[in-house]
């Protein structure tokens, strides 16, 4: 499953990059965070409550951050497990712009596996797309705050 999106933000590239590379900022914008634990500057463990409408499972997730290109491109890898469900998600985030405004672009490559992926096939792409979008909206709001 692949999808992408972008968002404008009225913050400079440096500020955005700094925000993105701090795991505690990022994890707070992930969907319905139940709890999290920052392992190190590149790794976070989190319990995320994700699903379709009221059909939700708590996913035990390990999220790692790797710089692909300093100041520009970040790879976020999410390995998630819930009861009878798994997901392996790679999100490539790039930031482009100047000192006052920037554009965030994301490209998601996800393998959704297990029960929800099978039964929820008809909704899972749109729901995933929305969840990622919401996470980035949260980021831009936090950046402006």
């Amino acid at each position, binding site marked *: 499953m692949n999808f992408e999106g972008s968002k404008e933000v009225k913050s400079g590239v440096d500020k955005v990059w700094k925000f993105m590379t701090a795991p505690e900022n990022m994890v707070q914008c992930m969907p319905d965070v139940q709890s999290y634990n920052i392992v190190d500057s590149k790794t976070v463990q989190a319990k995320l409550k994700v699903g379709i409408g009221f059909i939700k499972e708590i996913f035990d997730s390990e999220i790692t951050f790797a710089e692909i290109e300093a100041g520009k491109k970040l790879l976020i890898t999410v390995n998630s497990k819930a009861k009878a*469900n*798994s997901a392996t998600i790679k999100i490539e985030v790039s930031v482009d712009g100047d000192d006052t405004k920037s554009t965030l672009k994301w490209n998601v490559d996800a393998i959704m596996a297990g029960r929800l992926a*099978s*039964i929820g*096939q008809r909704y899972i792409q749109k729901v995933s797309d929305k969840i990622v979008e919401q996470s980035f909206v949260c980021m831009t709001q936090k950046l402006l705050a």
Partner: protein
Amino acid sequence: MEVLQTHKGEVKAANKYIGKNIKIREDVKLVQGKGHYIDDLELPGTLHMAYATSTYGHARIKKIDTSKCFTIPGVLYVVTGEELKSRLSPFMEIATPPSGNLRDYPLAVDKVRYYGEPVAAIVATDPYIAEDAAELVDVEYELLPVVLDGEKSLEQDAPLVHENIGSNVVWKGVWDLGDTESAFDRADLIVEDVVRTHRYASVPLETNGMVASYDEGSNIITVHSVNQMPMFSLPLICAALGIPPSGFRMIVPPNVGGAFGGKIINYTHITLVSYLTRILKKPVKYVETRTENITFGTHNNERIYHVSLAARKDGKVLGVRMKAIDNCGAYPRYEPAGAVIWAQVVPGIYDVRDIYVEFIQVLSNKGPTGPVRGYSRVQHNFMWERMMNALAKKLNMDPTEVRFKNLIQPEKMPYVGPSNTIYDGGNYPASFKRLLDTLEYKKWRDLQAKSRPDGRLIGIGVAAVIDSGANNFSQIKIINKDFPASGNSDVGMVIVDQFGDIVARTGTTDQGQSHATTFSQIVAEVFDTDPEEIKFQEGFDSISNIWAAHSGAYASRSAVIAGTALYYAARNLKQKVLKIAQSIMDEPISDLDIKNKEVFSKVSGKKIPLAKVASVAWSDVGLLPDGIDPGLMSYAIYKPDFKFNMPDERNRINNTLTYSYSIHATVVEVDPETFQIKILKHVVISDPGTIINPLVVEGQEMGATLHGISAALSENLVYDDDGILLSSNFWDYNVIGAKQMPDLELLQDVTRSTSSVLGVRGIGEGGGGPIGSIINAVEDAVTPLNIKLISSNISSYDLFSLNRKNEVI
């Protein structure tokens, strides 16, 4: 006890009860809920097993943490592949190395190879707890690329499903029959095409289930299971467990809720519950959920054919060459048997003798395959029927005309085919003509032509299948000459008990085929006694019942093989009854006969009840004449002579005994906007051979036809690109219901089988006949849209997409 070996000769055409519409005795009991199915069995103290299954299609197992399972009270044991690897032997493989070295255990070892593969098994005090705990198994996976398509799995850099065998190939073989080179030289034209068959399942109403218990005193494991070939499966289970067959008792309950081939490879579950009961010393039960049944219960093989067909311009087919790539999923299990079973129907119903087949069976990251109604032949028959249409199209001939040019003629019967199959009678051209007349072929063609200008999409399709029955296991020798299975055999036993009741048994099992009714009719015929009076013992028990190693209900073999054995057992017992009666009645044996449970003299009219004879035979044995053993019990084992019993160097063998055929004709209409497909008419003609009970035969033929329609238009196991099964329950795997079914017209053209003793043919499978006629009809209907079909499954969504693609181009 009298034991009869192979018999030759035929039953005289005496038909008082054979062939009659005797009321099916099983049905009333079942609709009243009085049957005994596996899930009805509750042994005291039974524990329940549930699986944790793979969420991915292909991944390395880095770590399995099962500790959380034990946080739930009632969880007693958790087992993973790691434990089984050291405690069990891998299952026996039919193929020789390298693929014979492939390692298959009841649970995934080192890797998961398909979505839904069992990774761990939990045993708990009730099934709810077991399933709760199964969700707590924590598996750390490392994702591996998946290979889902048969052709892709042969590519150089394809991911390997089993690394240790070095490729994804299970087995390869070549059938070089006749002289295709000369046939292609003589041809006016060559037609080339690709034909694909899709993946669907058996989906019996009752899923797979088993209960194992262990008796420490006798050191015997007893398994109650729905397995449909128990004595073939038993050695596989015993070898994995490392115990002798004497330490293993196999029971099949009196009622099994359908199988259609899908209850053979369940030996993996049987092995696991047996392993667990031995450890836990309590009965362990497992019954598949519907999702599990759809995910790994047994899928039908997908096959891709690349075919070249050589023909004359008058439509006569001279020869055919093909490469077939068969996708058997992640574990071969009963495969590669299917890689040779198609060869029962090498030329279809056509008189074509120069045939070259290169057959390759490969692995993929999909669920395991195995026998599914029409096993391995349905694909091959479909290929023929698609090629006949392709040839007709190329020649601009009517597809029925092309078929008439090629049908095997009745005077050639019994017909020895290019691979030494012996087609045992039938008049194909006459049946085909009757089918077309009943369909009103001409009328529909006219309507089709007339209505096309108005945008109506009407199509007509025909297709035939050979429903070969009573298989010859020697065909497995083509794959592995050392594999210890050949021929076929089954047993029958008839007893006249102390009260003079006639009781029959066979070794075969029943999954709804009405064996009690049918077999009673055979015995009734011999004893000239109302079939309602014949008792038939249902169920299977390897310790207390009779059986042969091939016993079981599969490959349309029960009526042909077990029925014959029972016929011989009854005939022999009748002779013994008369011998004893002779001395009681003091009349010559030639004057005596049996009718309605009495022995009577045709001369004096004197009669005595069977009970009188039975009392002397069983208890009052001092009165028995010299040389006659006590008891009225006759046991016969029957092993058919296939004539070409073993494969020769060109893989030629008569690999089944009877060859019932059916031809289907379908008229469909496709909605030009929604692309929905509606069947306007469906007619079937078949030759089941001598019919024992017409109601039973009609039920089988109707069921097979409806299964085929459902397979062609609906049932489809769809995996996404990551190998996740998307059609894993009845929301998305749709078995067509009664409301969607069209009215069927079933015709029969009965001829006796020239190969079976009773003249009957195996008709339990039906071979997916409608698949070909429906695909041909739909393609015919959408001719104005220039849509070409390749697969054995077509949906309105497919038609929409294919049409959209045309529009874009």
